[in-house]
């Protein structure tokens, strides 16, 4: 059974069909990229899958459960994490605290257990801090752990948001242009990490315009144009597909 299954998804905005009957099935452990011109519906599809937008038609299934129009927090609790193109961080919290906040949203620890700070809670906290530091190191922000997130550059916030999405160790990770505004050498590290997650069995769906990333790491590429799926296949086939060249690559 597919981990994520989107069936005939439709989303309209003021008379424009942003997503037009899109079918998409992602198997457990798959690394799939979603590409297409600006405005082709990629982010809207993510928004419908993660509950940030209500679909006007079709279905979203995660592990066979119907998640169509479920609220974002419920989708997140089930193990779906995502990043956003327009990054948002808590500017007054430190980089490290930003990651810990993300984790807390997903912990279902009993309130009483937290209040009395049982040994288990303290151990979980220590582990979370350890994990957050590792992730900051991964994105080159170790030296910025205690700096206010608001003092970071746009690109650094982007990297912080990427690390935050990894905090809860999600089963399905939806990444919306993680490489945009990121230095090419750091993009390589990001790429290696996404591949490492993939080897650990995590499922990743990537929206990205950086073709070095998409073609290097994807098992399968899905192409949207004007809200419709126009092609789907392994990277080499997509690169040569005349419809994709026409709609997306140009020249």
């Amino acid at each position, binding site marked *: 059974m597919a981990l994520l299954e989107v069936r005939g998804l439709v989303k309209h905005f003021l008379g424009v069909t942003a997503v037009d009957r899109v079918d998409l099935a992602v198997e457990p452990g798959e690394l799939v990229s979603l590409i*297409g*011109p*600006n*405005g082709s519906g990629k982010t809207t599809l993510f928004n419908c899958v993660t509950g940030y937008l209500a679909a006007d038609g079709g279905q979203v299934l995660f592990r066979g459960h119907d998640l169509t129009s479920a609220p974002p927090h419920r989708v997140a609790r089930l193990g779906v994490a995502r990043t956003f*193109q327009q990054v948002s961080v808590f500017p007054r919290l430190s980089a490290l605290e930003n990651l810990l906040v993300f984790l807390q949203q997903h912990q279902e620890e009993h309130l009483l257990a937290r209040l009395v700070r049982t040994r288990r809670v303290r151990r979980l906290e220590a582990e979370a801090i350890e994990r957050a530091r590792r992730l900051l190191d991964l994105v*080159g922000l170790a030296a*910025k752990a205690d*700096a206010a997130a608001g*003092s*970071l*550059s*746009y*690109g*650094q916030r*982007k*990297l912080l948001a990427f690390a935050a999405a990894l905090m809860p160790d999600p089963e399905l990770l939806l990444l919306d*242009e993680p490489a*945009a*505004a*990121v*230095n*090419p*050498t*750091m*993009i*390589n590290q990001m790429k290696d990490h996404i591949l490492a997650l993939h080897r650990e069995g995590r499922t990743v769906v990537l929206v990205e*315009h950086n*073709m*070095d990333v998409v073609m290097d790491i994807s098992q399968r590429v899905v192409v949207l144009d004007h809200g419709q799926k126009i092609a789907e296949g392994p990277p080499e086939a997509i690169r040569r597909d005349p419809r994709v060249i026409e709609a*997306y*690559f*140009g*020249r």
Partner: protein
Amino acid sequence: MAADGALLELREVVAGYEEVEVLRGVSLAVRAGEIVCIIGANGAGKSTLLRTVFGMLQPRDGTIRFAGEEIGGRPPTEVLKRSLGYVPQGRCNFPAMSVEENLEMGAYLRRDARVRDDIEAVLTRFPMLGARRRDPAGTLSGGQQQILEMAIALLLHPRLLMVDEPSLGLDPRMVEIVFDTILTINREGATILMVEQNARKALSVSHRGFVLELGRNRFEGTGQELLDNDDVRRHYLGG
């Protein structure tokens, strides 16, 4: 560094936000007619450098000369009046206003009678804007908004145009259009100072490039020299 003929020259500029010092003594010269690109890791100070030149930040030390005149610490309106344009990172300022209204807002500094003609010329020159002139700018695609911001900057006929990550979030075709536009603007006489993470592409169209690291100069050279430099490739261009 040869200061002769520099349109923009920064010497040992120090700047930052509150307690954070981002630029720690950056020097850089841009000669009239050049396309110069600044690259570097995230947080190296690239965007801060442009903001400081544009007067959004007060330099704490050092000098910033534009066309021979010290402009360090002058407010953005004063800088704009000297024909120094700036297209910030991200998207358009007035998403609810139409494309045309955005252009009118952008030209508010101009008092001459030819503004109307120039707006029409810009809408003709960028057909993707002309076709959407009455639409709210926020409904344009990311690439179209980037072109709109450059079009607004062009209305002030800048001698120097500073552009922060023009290719951010754009699909491959739009990236080509944006870089072609920058080349055209340059051929028409404007000097360009840009910050880009799409560093290979940017260096390939630039006359010269600077690499910043932790708020300091690290390397400089022609676009090709930087593309061929092993250290630059490994640390800043992804190998």
